[in-house]
């Protein structure tokens, strides 16, 4: 009896169970994750393009990038910002003592190149879409070209000396990355090569985008033009700078805020003069690490406005509305805080480019080309928007350029412009209202450039460290 059971039942079952391996394992061993698709086929449709573009913008929100440090670091290095007593974050940059181990430099480097890879994912996807939506696909690719240009532009500003540092712009820039290659160990291109790539990407962007983009949280054709205006300004291509600034101004998509609306506009997600801003919602708020919280009392409150810039602003100017009294401050710390990014609960948008900058770029470009009347008109417009009773600007020659520089400094303060403006004009940083250890940094100086992260130098033998940061 038992032998029969053994032969007819149990033995076959045992054999069957042992053989299961052959039958079901292939399928059994093929598993896909719940939150990700195959990278090689990630972009199959227009919706996929959209998702990849959103992912690209999401990268700009990082606290290492437009969410904080890329704006904060150049400002604390400039003469617009001084340190509060307990300033502990970007202090090494403020005091010009950062070293190759610096976490902020590494954070910016890694994050910005990660954004470039996200842009390249969109640009290099060779996916055909129906003709009816081809323009939308082109628009997405245009956004990606502009982001790639912006990211290279930002890297070359923070990790390399400015464009005009050497006569042939032949000093080391940053590696240009246009395709993903996991094995690549790129060397640094010259600054000239980097700027050529930036211009080319931005022009490509302008030509691809045909759809009116009303939402300044996304890149539009005008964003690309506005960036072209800025890049050309940095290069000293005055005619081109003026031409692109004019295109944006004349697009009719933006208008300067009124005097009364100005201060309050910083509480809003965007305003009529926003060309491109990084938007935040509560789920991508950087928390304590948000840009504004480096300034406001509810956040870290590490940094304070310098009297060097505050003292330039005339009484009654609407732009004094972006400061706030803090009764806990006293003595050298002054009495006010920066309130340009005032929201303690949901991170304020970070403006990347605004209309008023276009007027100021044009003013400078016109002045440099000898069109002083046009320059005076543009700078007066911005000045009187802040203080309607202010006198029109009538200075000429260097005096006019100084007026433009001053207006630019006031208008764009705490938006991460001041240091780059000093650099391109080959000026040092001279702080009068100074609470840090380092108050005067003469031009030229190795320390105006952030160190290449040691990690990158270790992983990439072709990477050359910036001078002044050891080997």
């Amino acid at each position: 009896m038992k032998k029969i059971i053994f032969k007819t039942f149990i033995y076959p079952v045992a054999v069957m169970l042992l053989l299961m391996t052959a039958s079901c394992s292939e399928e059994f061993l093929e598993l896909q994750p719940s939150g990700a698709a195959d990278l090689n086929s990630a972009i199959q449709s227009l919706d996929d393009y959209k998702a990849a573009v959103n992912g690209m913008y999401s990268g700009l929100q990082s606290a290492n990038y437009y969410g904080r440090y890329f704006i904060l670091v150049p400002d604390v290095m400039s003469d617009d910002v001084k340190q509060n007593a307990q300033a502990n974050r970007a202090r090494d940059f403020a005091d010009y003592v950062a070293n190759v181990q610096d976490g902020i430099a590494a954070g910016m480097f890694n994050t910005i190149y990660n954004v470039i890879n996200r842009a390249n994912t969109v640009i290099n996807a060779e996916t055909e879409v129906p003709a009816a939506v081809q323009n939308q696909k082109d628009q997405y690719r245009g956004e990606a070209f502009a982001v790639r240009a912006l990211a290279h532009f930002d890297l070359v500003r923070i990790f390399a000396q400015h464009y005009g540092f050497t006569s042939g712009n032949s000093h080391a820039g940053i590696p240009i990355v246009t395709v993903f290659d996991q094995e690549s160990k790129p060397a640094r291109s010259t600054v000239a090569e980097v700027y050529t790539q930036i211009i080319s990407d931005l022009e490509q962007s302008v030509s691809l985008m045909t759809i009116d983009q009303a939402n300044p949280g996304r890149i539009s054709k005008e964003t690309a033009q506005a960036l072209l205006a800025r890049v050309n300004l940095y290069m000293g291509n005055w005619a081109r700078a003026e031409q692109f600034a004019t295109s944006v101004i004349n697009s009719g998509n933006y208008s300067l805020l009124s005097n009364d609306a100005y201060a309050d506009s910083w509480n809003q997600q965007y305003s009529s003069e926003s060309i491109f801003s990084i938007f935040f919602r509560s789920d991508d708020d950087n928390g304590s690490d948000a840009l504004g919280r480096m300034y406001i009392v509810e956040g870290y409150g590490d940094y304070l406005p310098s009297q060097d810039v505050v003292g330039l602003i005339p009484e009654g100017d609407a732009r004094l509305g972006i400061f706030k009294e803090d009764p806990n401050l006293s003595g050298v710390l002054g009495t006010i805080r920066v309130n340009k990014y005032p929201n303690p609960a949901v991170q304020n948008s970070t403006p990347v480019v605004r209309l008023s900058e276009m007027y100021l770029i044009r003013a400078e470009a016109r002045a440099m080309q000898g069109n002083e009347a046009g320059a005076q008109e543009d700078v007066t417009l911005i000045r009187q928007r802040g203080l309607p009773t202010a006198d029109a600007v009538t200075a000429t020659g260097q005096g006019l350029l100084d007026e433009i520089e001053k207006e630019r400094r006031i208008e764009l303060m705490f938006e991460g412009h001041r240091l780059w403006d000093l650099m391109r004009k080959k000026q040092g940083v001279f702080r009068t209202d100074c609470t840090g250890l380092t108050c005067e940094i003469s031009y030229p100086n190795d320390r105006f450039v952030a160190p290449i992260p040691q990690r990158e130098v270790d992983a990439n033998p072709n990477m050359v460290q910036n001078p002044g940061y050891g080997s």
Partner: protein
Amino acid sequence: MKHAKHFMLSALFSILTIAVLHAQFTVQGTVTDATGDPLIGATILVKGTTTGTTTDIDGSFELRLPGQEATLLVTYTGYADREVAVSSTNNNVSISLQEAVSELSEVIVVGYGETRKEALTGSVTSLRSEQIEQVPLASVEQALQGNIAGLQSVMGNGQPGANVQVRIRGIGSISASSEPLYVIDGIPVTSGDITRTNTTANTMASLNPNDIEAVTVLKDAAATSIYGSRGANGVILITTKSGRSGKPRIDLKTQVGFNGWAVSDSRRLKPLTAEQYTEMYLEGWMNRGETVQRAMERFNGHYPGAVDFGPNGEIQRINIESDWIDAITRTGFNQSYDLSASGGTDAVSYYASGSYFSQEAPIIYSGLDRYSSRLNLKVKPNEKFTISNNLSLSRLEQYGMSDGSFWANPLYTGYFLAPVIPIYDDQGRFYGDHQSFFMGGNNPVGSLSGDDNRQFDQIRIMDNLSADYQLAKGLKFRTAWAFDMINVQEFFYRNPRYGDGRNVNGYATETAINELNWIGTQTLNYSKTFKTDHNVSALVGYEAQKNRRKGVITTGEQYPNSELRTLQNAANPTQAYSDFTEYTFSSIFSRVDYNYQLKYYLSGSVRRDGSSRFGRNNRYGTFWSVGLSWRMDQEAFLQDVSFIDDLKLRTSYGTNGNAGIGNYEHLPLFGFGADYDGSPGGVPTEIGNVNLTWETSTNFNIGLDFGLFNFLSGTVEYFSRESDNLLLARPISSTTGFTSLTQNFGAMRNSGLELTLNANIISRDNFSWGVGGNITFLKNEVTRLDEDIIDGTKIRKEGYDFQTFYLYEYAGVDPATGTPLWYTDESESTMTGNINDATRFISGRSATPDFFGGLNTNLAFKGITLDAQFVYSFGNYLYDTEARFLQGDGSLTPRSQTQINLQRWREPGDITDVPYFRWGGNNNSNVANMTRWLKDGSHIRLRNVTLAYSLPNTLVSKVGFRSARIYARGVNLWTWTKDKDLYMDPEAAINGLVESPVPNLKTISFGLDIGF
């Protein structure tokens, strides 16, 4: 058959009886185990004869003997033989047998089966229940430290229920897991930390150590290759208790005790007092060139009214004095109650238990509660068929905290918080008004007193059902199905008023993790003896396993009321997220064991594994091993060597793998969740690698087991473990958008010598003393790596130990200026005050110990026992990751520092290692990755000392007990460190990084165990 044997014995006995009728006497007696339980079927023989009998169901026997006196030899499987002298006057004896000390007859659980110790060809060490029971530790892995040669087990965090890191024969991997595989009752289970918002947790803490019969550690290829791609880091087999046939045994074990810091008060990091802080506050500003008046003005701005000053900064009166560290320190309480019942008949046997275990850290809030129960049931309806089911249920509740440089870490913030900030405000609430200038107003005392939460509970259900059927003589089929379900609910809450929740009016995160692990194993086992001398057994099997873990994370902020903390009360839900992750294994395996005359042993195993974790191109791998052993003591030429009791030489060679990487690392992935402006976004998240496969480990082992002079036994073993195709997150240029790429890249070797010695120095009826110990010399070397990898404080470099520190060499303080100095390079000939002119270099210091192990001694006198165990580790270095902040020479204004800064440089000529104090820092004196933060971690620690008294059976039986034992136990009572100035606990994580964790515990406890 059995009857026939009995009949023949009886007949023989009768004949002998008649033959010596002229002088004889009768001996009566009982044979029991050490606890007084009768041993049924024990053999009693008159020494030197074949005269004998066996004990009956009550353990009693009766024997008629010739002459006036004789010596009885009493034997019972699993127990030490015993000789007892009897005579016509001493003819009523109670004989109690000790469980076998001679390990060579032990039954050892091995992969997919069990064997006798003498048959082992591999390196296998076992820990029995007595060494695990009632140790006041949350999880069983903690009890392994110092008990098993070649094994390191550390927590690095005193949080009750913290994850335990176990390394068997060193670190075998760079990026993949180096944790061993845990197998409970034959089932590979989930181990480690699966929580999302807690700092440290351990799924294994759900297992009640009192339920464990034995822990067996498999170390070499002969033992682990049967586990294929998961065997490379060693395997820990845990066997739970089962019932034995006999009377029901009820055991009640209780224990209560107290927990403090393992390091003594004088050796801890001390916060500054209000006076010290105030002095340094003023000094810090004055060292920036400010006047004392200006510095006082700043002080009063920060801490109005805290200190009354004279006109030149003299401290006249301290009005606020807060010791934050003292305020979060307590004496923790621990308790454990365990009730079990076991017993059975020939057909059914059972073991059932229920227990409660609770442990509080010496830091307020931090603690663990465990409720667990188990039922192990075995039914044997006939000789051929066995069904068994092991079911365990447990619930863990853990209350934890942050570690590392997080403001929420109380042992970080507690040092930073100025002692002139009050703990309570004038409304009696926890103070939070320092948020505008001090770390978000974090108040660790309030946070840990109920204002915040960081906790989880875990329910784990493990069920293991198996059936064995004997198909034919020697041929057995076994099917085993197991389910392991883990449900974790985490709750994390930050209050609206101060700390990390202040800007969003409070927030909470709730996490649910559900894991289901199922595994089915089918095996056929055949064993046969040919021509009496050739013993063969063979095993073939098929196993499939699937593990699926699902997680849900929800967060919300804006709380109306700090008492109502569930997410329903949050005005603004901010995140809803879920995911799952899976892996599968599908395997076939086989093992063959052969021996000739129980003298020469040969074993071989092979396993073929497939796993979802690996790239399509390399999905399957085959692993094998060969083992040989020679029981030299069985040879004729050694039979006459009287001092040799046991002598066995064994060696093995083979391969296994390490599959301990992420579930999808081979896939190039485009992940979602990178949303922008409310619209979904996706980004490249993983480069992927279709060629990715397991690490291969090739192991050689040779060992000698010996027993000498009837009192000394031990093992000497040499091993070499070559790990190749290391899974490596190789740093790549971050210009790619990624910082690393997972590849099979590089090789590493761990080799070493393990020595275990045990001596029963005195072994008498009423008095015994034994000492033992083990030592492991471990050498780790990266043997192939195309390019150096610098990973934080360490460098991975060909020819060097994997854990070699790579740091700036701190050269102390310039006595003239008080500023820091470093050596420029490894020649250490030039010093510089500019960190940018210094380079990092290898100075030969590593987190890997030169040698480590344990020592133990046990003393028994009548019913009193005294056991002690020491653990030690030498030559390993510790790196304090938080020191650059906590001892940062004022780099973080205006955070307090520690008393180490009291040794700071003050005036020219001062010789010290601590630079002068300046707010904002002193010339990079607190830079990361320098030897200023590196300490020698060599130490010896008295892990466990237990004094116990077992009440005499005669006494306990009067009140109806089977046994009763009372004891006092101390854990970590004493610690010696080589570095006399060491201010951290020397028992740190394997990587040597100390991140201001919950301190390790010193426990003193008292217990009472009663058997019925």
